[in-house]
C-alpha cells in the first residue's frame, strides 16, 4: 500500500496530479547495498576544525570528491558542517548560510552531517547558546530536506577528536545508505574507544552475534544484516516459532537456538551455544519483544506483567549474566521504541518496558565498558511489519505520511542497519547511546 502510493505520486501523470493537489510525495530513500557509493556525489565541507584537513584527507581516502568552502555549481552528494569551534550564536551565521545556498544543489539521497560539541551547564552562556542552538538548527534543517536527503549530527564530548574511530564511523554511517530512515538525530561520541574495520563492506567479520526474536519481522532483518556484514549469527526465538526461525537460519547460514528469553538460564544457554559452537560471543541483540495493548483502565496484570517480563526484565537478567561472565568486548544492542519516548495511547505497559530499555542502556554503559564492551539502543518509529500492518488504515496513513519528515514508514532493514552499526567495534565510543530510526517522526521528538 505504501509502495503503491509512493509509485503513484512519483511517476507519470499521477505525479503531476499529486503535485497539483499538493499531496505529500514520499521520496524513494537511498538504501545501502555493499557495492553502492558512499554518497551520490561530491561532499562540501564547511566550517572550521583543528582536524579539518585530516578529516578531508580521510574523506578522500573513502573515495569521496571533497570540496572545501565552495562547491560552485556542482551537484552535491552531501554537506559536512564543522561546527565544533563556534563560540557564540552569531558565529553560526556564515556556515549555515553557505550551507543554505548549497541546499539547492543536493542530489536525491544526499546527506547533511554536522560535527559539534555538547552544551553543558558548566559552559559559558554564549558557548552553551551556540551549541544548544545547533541542535535546533540541525533538527529544523532535517525537516527542510527533500528527495530522501537527511540531516544528522555528531556530538563530540570534550576530550574526543573528530577523527576518533567512533566519530569517523558515525560520519560514515550517516553518509551511507545504512542511515536511510534516520533523520534529525544526534550521536554522541564519548571517547576515542573503538576500531574501524579493515573492510567497511564486512565490518562484523569474525564476530559471533546472537539475535533474539529472530524468527520474523525486524529480528529476521537484523539477523540477515549482521550475516551480510560478516558475522556468524545465532538466531533465537520461542520454541513455538522454531520453523520460521529455521528458515531464517538456513538462508543466512546461522544456527538456531529455540529459547524463551524469560527462562532463568536464558543467558547461560546463549553463552553455551555461541561459545561452544562458534567460539565466542561478541554481539547480543535484544530484539525479542511483545505488545499487549489495552487502555490502562482495562489493563489486567497478565498483559502488564508479560510485556515487562519479555521486553525489559529478561534483558536485565541476561545482561547481568553476561557481565558476570566478563565476556571481552561484548556489544549489546537493545530495541527500544519511540513509544517509550513519546508515549502511545493504549501502550502504558509497552512504553514502560521500552522506556525501561533506554534507562537500562544509559545506566549499563559504564558496566559494559569495564570489559571493553558497550551497550546501545535503537528506537524504531513506524516500521512496516506484519505487526504495524494490523493498525487501522487511517492511523497507519497518518503515521506514515504526516508524522515523519521522510513521509513514509521505515523498513525492518533500516532498523537492522543501525543495529549492525552500533554492534560493531567501530561504535565502542558511542557507548550508552539511544538512536532513533523514525524518519524524524513528530512522535518521540
Amino acid at each position, binding site marked *: 500500500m505504501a509502495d503503491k502510493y509512493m509509485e503513484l505520486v512519483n511517476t507519470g501523470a499521477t505525479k503531476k496530479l499529486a503535485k497539483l493537489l499538493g499531496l505529500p510525495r514520499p521520496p524513494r530513500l537511498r538504501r545501502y547495498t555493499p557495492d553502492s557509493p558512499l554518497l551520490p556525489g561530491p561532499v562540501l565541507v564547511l566550517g572550521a576544525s583543528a582536524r579539518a584537513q585530516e578529516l578531508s584527507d580521510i574523506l578522500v581516502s573513502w573515495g569521496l570528491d571533497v570540496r572545501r568552502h565552495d562547491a560552485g555549481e556542482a551537484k552535491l552528494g552531501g554537506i559536512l558542517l564543522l561546527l565544533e569551534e563556534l563560540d557564540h550564536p552569531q558565529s553560526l551565521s556564515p556556515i549555515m548560510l553557505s550551507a543554505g545556498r548549497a541546499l539547492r544543489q543536493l542530489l536525491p539521497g544526499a546527506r547533511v552531517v554536522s560535527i559539534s560539541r555538547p552544551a553543558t551547564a558548566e559552559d559559558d552562556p554564549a558557548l552553551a547558546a551556540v551549541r544548544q542552538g545547533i541542535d535546533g538548527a540541525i533538527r529544523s534543517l532535517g525537516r527542510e530536506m527533500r528527495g530522501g536527503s537527511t540531516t544528522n549530527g555528531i556530538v563530540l564530548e570534550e576530550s574526543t577528536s573528530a577523527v576518533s574511530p567512533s566519530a569517523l564511523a558515525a560520519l560514515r554511517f550517516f553518509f551511507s545508505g545504512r542511515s536511510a530512515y534516520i533523520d534529525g538525530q544526534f550521536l554522541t561520541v564519548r571517547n576515542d574507544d573503538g576500531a574501524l574495520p579493515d573492510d567497511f563492506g564486512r565490518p562484523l567479520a569474525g564476530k559471533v552475534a546472537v539475535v533474539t526474536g529472530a524468527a520474523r519481522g525486524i529480528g529476521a532483518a537484523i539477523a540477515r544484516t549482521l550475516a551480510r556484514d560478516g558475522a556468524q549469527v545465532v538466531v533465537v526465538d520461542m*520454541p*513455538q*516459532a*522454531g*520453523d520460521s*526461525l*529455521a*528458515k531464517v*537460519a*538456513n538462508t543466512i*547460514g*546461522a*544456527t*538456531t*537456538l*529455540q*529459547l*524463551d528469553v524469560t*527462562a532463568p538460564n536464558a543467558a547461560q544457554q546463549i553463552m553455551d551455544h555461541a561459545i*561452544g*559452537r*562458534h*567460539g565466542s560471543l561478541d554481539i547480543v541483540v535484544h530484539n525479542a519483544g511483545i505488545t499487549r495493548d489495552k487502555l490502562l483502565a482495562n489493563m489486567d496484570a497478565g498483559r502488564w506483567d508479560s510485556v515487562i517480563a519479555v521486553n525489559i526484565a529478561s534483558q536485565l537478567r541476561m545482561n547481568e549474566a553476561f557481565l558476570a561472565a566478563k565476556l571481552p568486548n561484548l556489544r549489546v544492542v537493545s530495541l527500544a521504541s519511540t513509544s517509550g519516548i513519546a508515549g502511545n495511547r493504549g501502550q502504558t505497559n509497552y512504553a514502560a518496558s521500552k522506556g525501561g530499555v533506554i534507562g537500562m542502556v544509559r545506566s549499563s554503559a559504564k558496566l559494559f565498558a569495564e570489559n571493553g564492551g558497550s551497550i546501545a539502543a535503537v528506537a524504531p518509529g513506524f516500521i512496516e511489519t506484519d505487526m504495524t500492518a494490523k493498525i487501522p488504515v487511517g492511523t497507519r496513513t497518518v503515521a506514515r505520511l504526516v508524522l515523519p519528515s521522510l513521509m513514509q514508514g521505515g523498513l525492518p532493514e533500516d532498523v537492522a542497519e543501525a543495529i549492525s552499526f552500533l554492534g560493531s567495534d567501530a561504535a565502542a565510543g558511542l557507548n550508552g547511546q539511544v538512536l532513533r530510526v523514525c524518519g524524524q517522526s513528530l512522535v518521540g521528538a
Partner: protein
Amino acid sequence: MAQQSVRNAVIIGGNRIPFARSNTAYVDASNQDMFTAALEGLVARYGLQGQRMGAVSGGAVLKHSKDFNLIRESVLGSSLDPATPAYDVQMACATGMEAIGSLANKIKLGQLESAIGGGVDTTSDAPIAVSESLRGILLELARARTTKAKLSALAKIRPSHLAPSAPGTGEPRTGLSMGDHQALTTQAWKITREAQDELAMASHANLAAAYDRGFFNDLITPFNGLSKDNNLRADSTLEKLGKLKPAFGKNLGDEATMTAGNSTPLTDGASVVLLGSEEYARSHDLPMLANFVDFEAAAVDFVHGGEGLLMAPAYATARMLERNNLALQDFDFYEIHEAFAGTVLSTLKAWEDEEFCREKLGLQAPLGAIDRSKLNVNGSSLAAGHPFAATGGRIIASTAKMLHEKGSGRALISVCAAGGQGVVAILEARS
C-alpha cells in the same frame, strides 16, 4: 578372528517435527514435506547449510510409488549440499533404528565422517492402490497400440474394480492387525488392564513434564502450525483411561484389555539424528551427546504361533547384551517403544521369566527385572504417538540427550516392528 578395533560413532543431536495424530495437523503434508522439514530444522540447529554430509539414510513404511527415492529427494529440497548421497531403508517400525544403526557402523569403520539417519511416516497421506484386477486392465490399456485394443481394454472395467485397496495395519500372513496380535501376547503374559493403563498414564505425565522443563527445545522444530505432539493428554487420569472400551482382541471377550488409551494411535511425523566421528564433531565444534555403541536385529516366527508378533526385541536384547558382556541391569535408562502398553509389559515380564529365558533365549538364568523408574522417563509412543519409521529417530535423539544431561551411564533402546522383527541398541553417555 580377533575383533578389529573400530572408532566411536557419536550422536551429535537430533530433530523432529511434532507428531500429529492421523488426519489432524499434517493431512496436507507428504512424507517428503515432513522429512524435509525435519532435515531443515536439523540443518538450522547445527549450522549444516551447504555442507556435504557423508550420507543421509531413512525411509517410510507407507510410501507412494512416486516416492521411490524419498530421502534423496528430501535432501535435494533441503539446505544441505546437493552432493550429499542419500538412500531409502525399509524395516517397518524399525526403519529409523536400522538406518541410524547402519550409518553408525559406517562411521565406526571410517567409511563416513558424518551422517543423518531417520524416518518419516504419514497415515493421513497414505498411498492407495487400485484393485489387482483393475491394475491388470490398466497395464493392458498401456500396452494397447490400436484404438480398438484400447477400447476393448477399457470395456473390461466394472464398477467393483473401482474400490481402492487402502493399506491397513494387518499382517499379510495372518490377516490380524498389530493390535490384535499384541492382544494375544498381552493375554498370554497375563498383563492386566490396570498395569497397561498405569503405563499409559505415566507416558503422558512424563512427556508433559519433559515439555514443561524445555527438554524438547533442542529436539523439536514446529511444523504446519504444530509445536507439540498433539496426541499428548497432559490431563490423562487412570479414571479416564479406565472408562475406555477395548479396541483390540475383542474376541477375547472379558479378557480384552487393550484400549485406544493404552495403544498408540496412527500418527504422522518425521525425525532425524545427526551422527559423526569424534573428529567430525570436534572440527565442527559440535556437541557429542552419546556414543552409539551397538545394535542388533531379531525376528520371530509369529506366523506359526512360535512367538508373539512384537516380541523380537526380547531376543535381540539377549543377544546384544551377551555380545557386550552386559547384564540387563547395567543401564541407566530403558527406552522400550510403547507400540502398546502391553508390548512393553510383555517384554519386561518375558525377561523376568525363567522358562522363557531358558527355552526361548537359551539363557541359564532370566535376564531379570529392571528398575522401572528408569523406563521411558520422558514419555514414549503412547503419549508422543508413533509415526512408524520416525520412532527410532525420536528415541535415539532423546535418549542421547538424556545421557548427556546425566553425564554418565548407558541406555538400552528397544523398538518392535511389523513382520515379527525388532531392533535394539545401546547408547553410552559422553562425559
